[in-house]
């Protein structure tokens, strides 16, 4: 075999987050002379396409797979098949269930990302947090893992009792006005925001699954002239998102580093192909944490954050 | 004698259009009843109402003196009434044999038929071919042709053959020879007489006066959605019948009671 083959399998390749992940992987692969094939589910939660992708990689004789799994536990048997066939499987962004089903995990902690924006929002509101009116704009009704982690992290950070931390929407805290789904895009963000505003026009804290949804929510608020007095928080840290933080559209966002995950993953596959060495997890965790940082120009005591300028330097798309 | 099939006071409206206007109807055992009338007079609607294909807005249907309410043509068929509708009612994409046996398919004898419910195609095809030959429809070159590929007359022939082969109590034919050729029409008339000789009464709707006068025992003249009168072909000439049905002449008052 002339070239080392590697596969990148993402949840979708329409979400900018994964697009950037792919760019990072492609750039690194080119640098290291690895032949990279990328795969993606058709929609969020499209599990079978990912299984088919793993099988294709095996058929293709690739050396390793970088995987952001849609269904973290169901994928395990396919992953096992790949590992049995001698491929290195690295989970990116989302850990598998159980986490050791993959050879290694390069992830961001989505729960922590949620906690950060939750704490920030609570701190920002100060005393008003006690009677805040919260709306959460989530991903879709199938409640994929990221969705749950970010949502529950946020509520946890805000100091709300989670009931079952694996389920969105079972909280009984009266401060929660409601949640709606956005499909993670502007259109869905706007629609969901409008629906929730119609339920309660007093909403003043909005958690959004990602920055496009936040931008949509902002449009809905603007349409009724409330864009100034609602706190929108989000997760991702893409360049337009950080720009939106700067413009005051989003109050704060938790920045993640898909490019870093991807390039680290490629390097790990290269190493594995060369001498069979596997990457090691971060000290004290069972995965390699690529980090998350809160981006805002209005820092709050007790919550670590970086400035928008720093965020712009590190943003990914 | 009690009519075998009887309709009383039947009404059917389609939006603004009145197709049946308090219409009565009688068919006696063993007879051939001709039904004639202008286009749109409501003949087809009448036989649809008595054969369960439409539900009348008002009125009653009696079979053998018992009141019946056919919810579907299948009900009527179950009661032994076999109908050739003017639209022929065939599944265009299916073959001639499939259409002839629709709803009463023959199964292979033995295990294949009993357990695997396999159709006995050769038998059905042979039967179909025989029945069509009886009608003189020799031009059908391929018995497995889909019905939609048949010529207009061939299609009608298939429908008539089906009704004649399976009707047990009453056979209703709505313009069975409209698209048929001279030879084929003649065969249908012979078939009708043959069916009658088996004791089965027949309703024959037709615009062909000579045919109707040739085979019918009584003629029901339909006009503007109702039965205008019933005549015997021996008592009146074709011109009289045409005059009644087109409104050129009024029938005698006592005929109306008939």
């Amino acid at each position, binding site marked *: 075999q002339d070239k080392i083959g590697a596969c990148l399998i993402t949840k979708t*390749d*329409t*979400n*900018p987050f994964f*697009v950037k992940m792919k760019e990072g992987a492609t750039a690194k692969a080119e640098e290291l002379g690895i032949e990279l094939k990328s795969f993606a589910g058709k*929609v969020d939660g499209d599990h079978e396409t990912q299984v088919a992708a793993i099988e294709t990689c095996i058929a293709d004789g690739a050396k390793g797979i970088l995987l952001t799994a849609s269904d973290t536990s169901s994928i395990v048997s396919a992953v096992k098949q790949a590992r049995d066939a001698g491929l290195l499987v690295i989970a990116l962004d989302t850990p598998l269930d159980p986490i050791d089903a993959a050879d290694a995990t390069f992830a961001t902690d989505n729960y922590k990302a949620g906690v950060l924006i939750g704490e920030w929002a609570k701190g920002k509101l100060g005393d008003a947090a006690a009677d805040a009116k919260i709306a959460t704009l*989530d991903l879709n*009704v199938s409640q994929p893992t990221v969705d749950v982690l970010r949502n529950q992290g946020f509520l946890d950070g805000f100091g709300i009792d989670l009931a079952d931390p694996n389920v969105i*929407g079972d909280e009984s805290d009266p401060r929660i006005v*409601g*949640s*709606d*789904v956005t*499909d*993670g*895009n*502007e*259109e*869905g*963000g*706007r*629609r969901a925001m*409008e*629906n*929730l505003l*119609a*339920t309660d*026009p007093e909403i003043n804290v909005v958690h959004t699954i990602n920055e*496009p949804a936040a*931008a*949509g929510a*902002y*449009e809905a608020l*603007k*349409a*009724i002239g409330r864009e100034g007095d609602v706190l929108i928080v989000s997760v991702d840290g893409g360049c*337009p998102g950080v*720009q*939106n933080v700067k413009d005051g*559209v989003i109050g704060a966002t938790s920045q993640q580093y898909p490019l870093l995950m991807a390039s680290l993953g490629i390097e790990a596959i290269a190493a594995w192909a060369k001498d069979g060495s596997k990457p090691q997890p971060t000290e004290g965790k069972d995965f390699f944490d690529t980090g998350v940082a809160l981006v805002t120009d209005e820092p709050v005591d007790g919550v670590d954050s970086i400035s928008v300028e720093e965020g712009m330097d590190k943003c990914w*798309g | 004698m009690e009519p075998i099939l009887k309709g009383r006071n039947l009404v059917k*409206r*389609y*939006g*603004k259009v*009145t197709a049946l*206007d308090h219409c009565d109807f009688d068919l006696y055992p063993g007879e051939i009843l001709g039904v004639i009338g202008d286009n749109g007079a409501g003949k087809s609607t009448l036989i649809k109402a008595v054969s369960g294909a439409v539900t009348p807005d008002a009125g009653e249907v009696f079979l053998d003196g018992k009141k019946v309410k056919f919810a579907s043509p299948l009900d009527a068929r179950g009661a032994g009434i076999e109908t050739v509708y003017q639209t022929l009612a065939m599944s265009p994409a299916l073959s001639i044999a499939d259409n002839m046996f629709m709803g009463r398919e023959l199964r292979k004898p033995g295990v294949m038929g009993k357990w695997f419910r396999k159709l006995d195609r050769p038998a059905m095809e042979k039967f179909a071919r025989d029945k069509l030959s009886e009608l003189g429809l020799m031009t059908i070159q391929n018995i497995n042709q889909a019905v939609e590929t048949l010529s207009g007359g061939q299609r009608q022939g298939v429908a008539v053959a089906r009704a004649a082969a399976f009707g047990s109590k009453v056979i209703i034919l709505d313009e069975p020879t409209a698209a048929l050729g001279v030879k084929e029409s003649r065969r249908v008339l012979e078939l009708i007489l043959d069916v009658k000789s088996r004791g089965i009464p027949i309703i024959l709707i037709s615009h062909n*006066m000579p045919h109707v006068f040739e085979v019918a025992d009584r003629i029901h003249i339909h006009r*503007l*959605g109702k039965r205008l009168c019933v005549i015997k072909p021996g008592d009146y*000439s*074709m*011109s009289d*019948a*045409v*005059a009644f049905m*087109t*409104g*050129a*002449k009024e029938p005698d008052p006592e005929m109306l009671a008939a």
Partner: protein
Amino acid sequence: MGSEMSETTSRSDDYESVIGQSAQGIAEFDDDRHGLIHKVQHALHVTPSLVPLIVLLLSIIIFGILLGSKFFSPFALTLILQQVQIVGILGAAQSLVILTAGIDLSVGAIMVLSSVVMGQFTFRYGIPAPMAIAFGLACGTLCGFINGWLVAKVKLPPFIVTLGMWQIVLATNFLYSANETIRSQDIAAEAPMLQLFGAKVQIGGAVLTVGVIFMVLLVVVLAYVLKHTAWGRHVYAVGDDPEAAELSGVQVKRTLISVYMLSGLICAFAGWALIGRIGSVSPTSGQLGNIESITAVVIGGISLFGGRGSIMGMLFGALIVGVFTLGLRLLGADAQWTYLLIGLLIIAAVAVDQWIRKVSV
């Protein structure tokens, strides 16, 4: 020989000689059904699009009773209009195609690609906004033309053509835009014309957007065109029975191609309206456009087999879904339950529709 002929003639003629005296005039019947109910029934019978309208009004009333002023506020009611505008515009495109017994799975994709073209042409290439919009509209029309050409000339099933087109256009969209969003703030600053459809218009007490007005006008114009022009009748004829239409002198292929082109153009307008609605140009929006527009069309009473139904019904269909969605949210159902209930209500709405139709015969 002459004598034989005349004999023949007289033969076939004899019983027909009375025809000259036959009755003249059109038959008339007493109708013993009178009164209001019958009038209503008749109105429903001749104007089938009234039926979804009734279902719509019923659902507004029910939600109004359940929710009171929360739902009956100008805010909520105009919100519904704004939320359905995209589906309404796409539904207009979809209606045209479905009336020809086709189906267009690519409407949403064409919409998004057109909006991306408008945005990228302005921001990537620095073309003035009006020109870029024209390119976007042309792009949609072109996609429609390809659909139409494949359906009409190559005679491929519309489902397949537009399924392929859907994937092609969506992939092109992602490849071309590199999944990059153009932010609302940038558009407002540099090319506000792209956001034209989002502009607010005060009519009486209600606040409407240009997009909403466009949707309503579009449907009204199309309803006129379909009903009162030759082209419109041809669209119905083609959908009804393309062979009969061909035999009776309709240029079936030309009609089909024009329908798909117009549908593409309308989708491109929907793309423009999309920018107005969400502010930004986002390549990931509108992915459910096809299924939502088909739903609106079918609830509105247009037959998927072509040739039957009215485009007004589609608008009511879209609004019915909009009312349900918002109403249920306001009642406090969460996302999963809303999803479930909307499924139920769609079936119920069409069942009521069917029932009214039956009663109105």
